[in-house]
């Protein structure tokens, strides 16, 4: 008999959700996490007494408790977590900011976006509402051939500016493709961001992860940290055990890997196929901590500002280390009903070029961080005003940081542009969940873990 029925590689959100789902019905399951704490891309760390979150700007897919079909509430039912005990804080509102004073505001009340489009793009509102009818009637979960979102949008909207404005938040929060996106992915993102909206859990990412780990261990699930998997051993065309970097082997009946397609293939001693499966969209992010009393000096009435200061959105890997012409400015404290704190944060995110960061020497890397941090502050100051003089602490991460802590090939936070929607690999008891399976964001990646367990592990297909 195997040591475990199921081994899950990666203790990020998809791995934890898969683990809870399987352990809930009595299955023996072990999660192997290479880092010292759980969370993967959505984790946390401490510096100078501040708890800093990685990844999270906001959770998407807001839904009130009781709305049974909403993805957030379906997820909670699947994990047997009480939605009523889960306290959430909704966003204030967010802003899409383009050149020449073109802005659109949106909130968790979808009608605000409709009103904004009607008043700023009056010739386009009928087209937008026709697009909305298509989105509402679309099933994005049934596998189908790739459809260009830009071609679809051009059927309903004529102003390229409005198309880019609508696309920016949806792309930057979950598109692994450059320039365009699959229409199914567009529909998922449109619903999760514009129709459902942004929120954050009460407490920190550390608390949220503790809730998940506690649930998992309460069902008898086990998790081991600092346990990088080196390989998955195959016997008679089936995975029989995993081998840890230290040499230890653990036997199992099935494996769910959340480390992405290239990393999983490498563990199976198959070609990594990076040219096909490694995404090109990766990011740098700067985190600034400032005293609360200086908040009034910056334009900080929104939760998230999605900006583009060039005429056309270039959603692609930049030719320079960082593209500051567009980005995201997030105020993590700007959610309704958050307890007051002595400090507030500004987080600024831009697309980055993995190769240029990767090839830098340690000295060059530090210099690049400083140079691009300064450019980022200069650019963001054009939108929210100067804040540099008030910064008490700053930190930043690059594609290299992401790669080191999360196992995402080339630091591509949204993974492969080619998704493996059925989660299957060439090995029949090894499955892929998480980013490269296709659902994105915190709620999405957790649903990915749940659905792979439901489809392949709980039901005997």
């Amino acid at each position: 008999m195997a040591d475990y029925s199921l081994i899950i590689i990666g203790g990020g959100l998809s791995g934890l959700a898969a683990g809870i789902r399987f352990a809930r019905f009595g299955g023996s399951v072990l999660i192997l996490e290479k880092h010292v704490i759980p969370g993967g891309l959505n984790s946390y760390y401490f510096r100078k007494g501040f708890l800093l979150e990685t990844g999270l700007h906001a959770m998407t897919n807001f839904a009130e408790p009781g709305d049974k079909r909403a993805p957030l509430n379906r997820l909670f039912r699947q994990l047997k977590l009480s939605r009523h005990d889960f306290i959430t804080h909704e966003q204030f509102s967010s802003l899409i900011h383009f050149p020449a004073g073109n802005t659109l505001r949106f909130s968790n009340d979808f009608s605000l976006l409709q009103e904004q489009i009607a008043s700023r793009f009056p010739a386009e509102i009928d087209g937008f509402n026709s697009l909305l009818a298509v989105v509402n009637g679309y099933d994005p979960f049934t596998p189908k051939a790739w459809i260009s979102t830009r071609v679809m949008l051009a059927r309903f909207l004529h102003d390229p500016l409005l198309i880019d404005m609508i696309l920016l938040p949806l792309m930057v929060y979950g598109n692994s493709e450059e320039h365009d996106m699959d229409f199914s992915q567009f529909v998922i993102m449109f619903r999760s961001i514009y129709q459902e909206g942004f929120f954050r859990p009460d407490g920190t990412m550390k608390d949220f992860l503790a809730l998940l780990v506690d649930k998992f261990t309460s069902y008898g699930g086990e998790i081991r940290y600092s346990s990088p998997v080196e390989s998955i051993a195959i016997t008679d065309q089936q995975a029989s055990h995993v081998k840890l970097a230290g040499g230890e082997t653990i036997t199992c009946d099935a494996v769910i890997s959340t480390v992405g397609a290239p990393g999983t293939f490498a563990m199976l001693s198959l070609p990594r196929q990076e040219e096909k499966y490694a995404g090109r969209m990766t990011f740098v992010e700067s985190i600034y901590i400032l005293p609360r009393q200086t908040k009034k000096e910056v334009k900080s009435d929104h939760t998230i500002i999605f900006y583009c200061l060039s005429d056309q959105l270039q959603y692609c890997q930049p030719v320079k280390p960082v593209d500051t012409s567009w980005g995201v400015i997030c105020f993590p404290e700007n959610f309704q009903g958050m307890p007051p704190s002595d400090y507030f944060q500004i987080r600024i995110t831009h697309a980055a070029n993995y190769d240029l960061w990767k090839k830098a020497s340690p000295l060059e890397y530090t210099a690049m961080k400083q140079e691009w941090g300064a450019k980022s502050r200069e650019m963001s100051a054009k939108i929210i005003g100067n804040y540099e003089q008030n910064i008490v602490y700053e930190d930043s991460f690059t594609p290299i940081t992401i790669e080191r802590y999360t196992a995402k090939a080339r630091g591509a936070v949204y993974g492969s542009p080619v998704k493996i929607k059925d989660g299957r690999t060439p090995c029949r008891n090894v499955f892929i969940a998480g980013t490269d399976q296709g659902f994105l964001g915190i709620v999405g990646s957790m649903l990915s873990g749940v659905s792979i367990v439901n489809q392949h592990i709980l039901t005997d297909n």
Partner: protein
Amino acid sequence: MTRGEIKDVILEIIADIDEDADMDGLNPDEPLRDQLDLDSMDFLDIVMELRKRYKLQIPEADYHELATLTSCINYLEPKLKAL
């Protein structure tokens, strides 16, 4: 297990799955799915709970037998008779 006991088990499992389930006024001959607004993922939970509690294997081809409360009882009665 009697039909009444089986009914109680099903209702208890549903209440366990869905903290918002409203069992009052449930019509035993109407689809549970429509009345409780459940989806296929929730139905898998019913199947899995029955497996966990009674070691009962319900093949996917039989899932439709669980559509209504009455059809659940009809389907489970011979399987749980000995318990």
